């Protein structure tokens, strides 16, 4: 039905008594996500939209048997929050917080892997398995249950693509925003593998950006391991070299990471690249028909 999150997801919200944490906890609960608790040190016993608050993730997990955590704490505390979740036995950690220092993420990521858990984000919109569970800040109304997996480095651009998919009758199994920072958790390769192995995903939309070489590696991975149809859009063809575009992900280092190189990498392995986000649905449909 989906990857990573589903009806069995038991979610806690770290930083639930904060403005963003409280707002989105409520939104997630309204969507049907099984939000079993939240944390805020010293606020044990309080409730946010009926969700019980605990002092520590450890306490929350003990009391609720939570398996997933979403983090809304301010950037200076995000590393500690990620490590706390991993230490408490949470197996999927989604960090929404933006502006987290890179070396904090490096250290937290290492610890999360050490504990056998997975990280999504930071600086990401989260993920959604429509009609089952939404973890993060996704605009749920544009999503529709279906069989297309979506992986994206970008926020609103993802929504643009999803909107086009939904409008064209292509629902989503799961849509994941991996986040735009230099170092984030689950990325193209891991997610492509999960979608490839998900019996309820038929095709995959991948939304990339300039900067780094993750798209090039994704193309290589698709060639070797992905049999399902994939369509790609790459944002940033017009970005001048060395300029930072909105988030750290969108920076072209000299001599690599340009949109042209990325597009060429996908085309070289037979993955069609859309000129505009609106072309994605037909690029996938065409492949699905030819199977």
């Amino acid at each position, binding site marked *: 039905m989906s990857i990573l999150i589903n009806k069995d997801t038991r979610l806690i919200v770290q930083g639930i008594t904060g403005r963003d944490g409280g707002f989105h906890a409520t939104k997630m609960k309204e969507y049907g996500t099984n939000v079993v608790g939240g944390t805020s040190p010293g606020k044990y016993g309080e409730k946010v939209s009926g969700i019980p608050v605990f002092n520590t993730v450890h306490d929350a997990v003990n009391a609720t048997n939570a398996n997933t955590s979403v983090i809304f704490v301010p950037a200076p505390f995000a590393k500690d929050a990620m490590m706390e979740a991993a230490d408490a036995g949470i197996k999927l950690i989604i960090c929404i917080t933006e502006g987290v*220092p890179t*070396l904090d993420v*490096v250290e937290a990521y290492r610890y999360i892997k050490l504990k056998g858990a997975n990280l999504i984000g930071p600086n990401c919109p989260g993920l959604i398995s429509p009609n089952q569970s939404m973890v993060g800040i996704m605009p749920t109304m544009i999503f529709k249950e279906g069989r297309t997996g979506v992986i994206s480095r970008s926020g*609103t651009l993802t929504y*643009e693509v999803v909107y086009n998919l939904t409008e064209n009758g292509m629902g989503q199994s799961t849509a994941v925003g991996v986040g735009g920072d230099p170092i984030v958790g689950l990325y193209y390769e891991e997610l492509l593998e999960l979608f490839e192995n998900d019996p309820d995903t038929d095709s995959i939309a991948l939304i990339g950006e300039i900067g780094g*070489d993750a798209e090039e590696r994704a193309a290589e991975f698709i060639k070797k391991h992905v049999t399902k149809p994939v369509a790609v859009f790459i944002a940033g063809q017009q*970005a001048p070299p060395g300029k930072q575009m*909105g988030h*750290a992900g*969108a920076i072209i280092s000299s001599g690599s990471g340009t949109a042209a190189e990325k597009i060429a990498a996908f085309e070289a392995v037979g993955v069609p690249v859309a000129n505009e986000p609106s072309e994605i649905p037909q690029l996938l449909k065409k492949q699905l028909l030819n199977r």
Partner: protein
Amino acid sequence: MKIHEYQARDLFASYGIPVEKSILCRDVNDAVKAFQELDAPMVVVKAQVHTGGRGKAGGVKLATNEIDVRKHAANILGLDIKGFIVDRILVSRAVDIESEFYVSYVIDRKSKSTILMLSREGGVDIEDVAHTTPEKIHKIVIDPLIGVPDYLARQAAFKLFDDIKQVRAAASILQKLYKLFVETDASLAEINPLVLTPDKEVKAIDAKMTFDDNALYRHPKIAALFEPTEEEKKEQKAKSKGFSYVHLGGEIGCMVNGAGLAMATMDMIKLYGGNPSNFLDIGGSSNPTKVIEAMKLLLSDKDVKVVLINIFGGITRCDDVARGLLDAFEQIKTNIPIVIRLTGTNEKEGRELLKGTHFHVAETMGEAGRMAVELVK
């Protein structure tokens, strides 16, 4: 965030990394005084600018006497290197060099960690070495929980040197540089070249550091070294108001929510034969005040002939966004044509509200792009 070589050298020195004595100068007389004070047979006069390629641009010169120092200082000060005007030069003892090496710590997206890069091919453009002879660059992934223990520093240093004394000297530099990297939240700490002198000393001859903007809040001393260019000041001002702005130079001004969608919008303008004047991401919310500020910034660019507003209504619904835009443009008086494209939640209601206004309303990104390009002509 970038800093100058002389600032990076100071940081190196404070961490015990051997650098040659040098003096920062802002005019020619300072440079001559520095030469006298250094009392060295040869000095190097180096432009201090936030860009690479100084040598090729004539920004690095050797001198053995006052006359040459004066000449080089005068030539380099005021030089334009890739758009940066040189206002400071560093006068440093020149070292005899037996061989040159490359050393850097950098954040690596693939391994999701810091990596140490080393090469016996130092002093040149390391990108060239990476392209032509990648086997000459050694990469060592650093475990953030372990750092650089003695054995790892030694193992790395053996990639550069064979003699155990030089290995020990280099290993110590590698450990200190990592400490500096981590303790200042750097994103790059580079020594190029690290040199071996004829009397077998290992020294850093250049120093380059950039820092993680997200971490500057905990390093006020480093944050204080920030010297924005005029463009950067504009971008900084935008950032302080909650949006990102990058000037590009075309004639179609863009205002978009989300960095990815903003880039896709620029790409689309180009696809239809136009030129985007800027990248402008107004972020998650679209409240009127923010829109007003963003529009003012956008319109301050006199090349802008058309404005394209592309908003995806997610959590904020399109009808709310439309109302916000109407409010905002009541306060902004402009004759420049405005194309608006709204998609997402309640998009029809949103478009309905904009009907009959002076806005050009598009349904799809493609349509908006075509309309904007058409309006420029």
